[in-house]
């Protein structure tokens, strides 16, 4: 066990390379910058195209030659927030995303700890079952789920969507958190138990705080998956609980796609989650490093 796993705030930065290789290193590092640069162009150009399109009129989007100079319009954004009331979709996505992430963590973290640490019978089988539950195609789940939720009078409620998204987020939480807990040196918890903390105390006061970065990383992934989910959000939502992906699809009609409107909606859908990603990026990398995500 290396020391950095003990201290979550101390993720090793890559240290300087040996001086003897300085010349070669420069060429190598420049090469790395070039590779990253090219990759960034590949990643960003499609997104920037959408950003530019969101300020274009329909006829400016479909031109024979690329137009860099065009008269920008805010009409597409007016459609998104005026005609469609996109704030409502954003709010719904936020409620469902946070709800399902919170629920998944709440249920998944203790479960993962039990699998990692407690002498539970059939631990391996439980782990397999969790992975298996992540493999079920959404098409197989969505219609039966609709019927079950209908019996429980849940269809159209936020809880229906939160539970549905928990179906794919809970396995992720359990799978990831289990490896984080396994990575902790057991001596810490044992020491706490010798001091009379009890099993639960060892989990609650020792293991849980130490895995906070891992939990943050897991939470970010859960929110992203929930934010982008479409099929459950469509079938199980009511008119008042539709989420962002359903809202974006509203611009794809039967005989026409509103390219300007859908581009603006796409940008509006991307921005909140991108900001979250920027803010959480530190946690994401640190959390995943810390756990050393293992199978």
């Amino acid at each position, binding site marked *: 066990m290396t020391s950095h796993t003990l201290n979550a705030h101390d993720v090793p930065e890559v240290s300087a390379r040996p001086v003897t290789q300085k010349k070669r290193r420069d060429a190598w590092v420049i090469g790395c910058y070039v590779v990253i640069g090219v990759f960034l162009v590949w990643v960003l150009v499609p997104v920037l195209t959408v950003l530019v399109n969101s300020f274009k*009129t*329909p*006829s400016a989007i*479909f*031109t*024979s030659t690329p137009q860099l100079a065009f008269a920008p319009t805010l009409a597409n954004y007016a459609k998104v927030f005026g*005609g469609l009331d996109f704030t409502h979709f954003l709010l719904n996505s936020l409620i469902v995303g946070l709800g399902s992430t919170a*629920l998944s963590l*709440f*249920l998944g973290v*203790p479960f993962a700890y039990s699998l990692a640490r407690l002498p539970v019978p059939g631990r391996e089988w439980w782990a397999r079952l969790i992975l298996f539950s992540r493999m079920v195609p959404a098409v197989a789940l969505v*219609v039966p789920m*609709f019927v079950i939720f*209908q019996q*429980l*009078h*849940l*269809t*159209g*409620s*936020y*809880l*229906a969507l*939160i539970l549905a998204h928990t179906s794919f987020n809970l396995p992720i939480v359990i799978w990831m958190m289990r490896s984080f807990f396994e990575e902790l040196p057991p001596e810490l918890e044992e020491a706490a138990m010798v001091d*009379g903390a*009890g*099993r*639960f*105390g060892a989990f*609650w006061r020792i293991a849980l705080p130490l895995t906070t970065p891992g939990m943050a990383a897991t939470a970010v992934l859960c929110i992203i998956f929930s934010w982008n989910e479409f099929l459950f959000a*469509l*079938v199980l939502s*009511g*008119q008042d609980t*539709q989420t962002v992906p*359903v809202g974006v*699809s*509203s*611009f*794809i*009609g*039967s*005989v*026409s*796609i*509103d390219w300007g409107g859908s581009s603006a909606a796409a940008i509006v859908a991307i921005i909140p989650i991108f900001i979250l990603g920027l803010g959480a990026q530190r946690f994401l990398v640190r959390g995943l490093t810390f756990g050393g995500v293992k199978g």
Partner: protein
Amino acid sequence: MFATQHKRSWAVIAAVALSAGALMLTSCTSTAGGSAAGADPNAAPKSAGGPYGTFPGEKLTLSRWAGDPWTSGQTQAAKDWSSSTGGKLTLAAVPYENLHDKQALSLSSGSDYDIVYVHPSWFGEFAKAGYLAPIDKYLADPKRNPTGFSAASYLPNVLAQGKYNGTQYCLPDFVSTIVVGYRTDLFAAAGLAAPKTVSDVLADAAKLNSKGGTAGIVMPGKATGAVADVFGSLLTAQGNWWYNAAGTKNTLDSTAATNALDFYTSAAKYAPTGVLNMAVDDAATVAAQGKAAIVVDTTPSLSALEDPAKSSTVGKWGYVPLAFDASKPGGELIYWNWCISSNSKSKDAAYSFLQYYTDTAQQAKVALAAATLGATKSFYEDKAVTSKLPFLPAVNAALSNSNPQPSLASWPAIQNAIETSVQQAIQGSKTNAQAVTDMQTALAALGK
């Protein structure tokens, strides 16, 4: 000591269960709409052409797809209806691709929708399942309709599509078909006359292909239903159709199918790159941006050609129907059905909107905004509107000999097989003869 730890974990679990329960409770508080005091379904409209009846406080939900030019028109109509009758009609829109599933599931659970906008391909399925309410008595009731308005006010062949086992369930609108658009300026410059038959279309497309960067012809090639619509129109123009009147037997004639497929595969040679992935709107956009001399497409999509916001070729288009024999054009009748959910607690109010929206005055607005035609006879006599629809003569000519868009539950799977066969014939991975045989095989699933 151990016990307290243990209690704590149970307390946590209990807290979760409680909060879940609380969420569940809040989800159950939605109220059901019902007829309120002061409602009079027989009240005459407040102004001429307005909706019948007053329904103060009644809440209705209308299910339709999201997007497209019809949205704004329907939103406005719902608003006007609400302010005139005192009710409140809300539009519930979901993405078009998922409209059927959403409606089917919602109606099966007995909730939500009062008015449903139903596509032919699932009308039969819904009627059979008992999801739709009969409207015969409303349609025959003089107190619920304007003077002289009755079933006879609709185009009989279109209205008949809303019938299931002899009962009328729906009122139609969205009348449209497949026609040919051609660039009058390019034709004049090349000294060509307006095409009269599909062989003219092919010959002209060949001559105009890749002149000045335009393709000869463009049409939908993606398997979204439009390929089968075009193909069905080509069959209709030859007096043939996929199946018999009962929808139980394959009647596809090999010669007619081969002719239609020959047209499709030949036309694809003069089509722009990517034609096999073009839906109706993609084909129309290509034409509107001046990248094709001829376009074969549905009329609602063709409205993009005349829309200055989307087209660089406004006013440069002429329209003719599809025909093999110039004296006998034909086309598939495309339409939609407005129906009332059998679960609705506001059927009177729902019918009021159906009548109001499918009648000539509202349909005239829709026609100007979105290029679909009304299903009432008087719509076609309204010169103020018809004079503004450049493709109307071609549509009328095509629909004088028409087959309605298939409305069999087995159709979507067959349609997919047909469209795949057309694509494979165009790609050359299948001969035309093989493709026709495959269509026949797919049609054998009829009535099963």
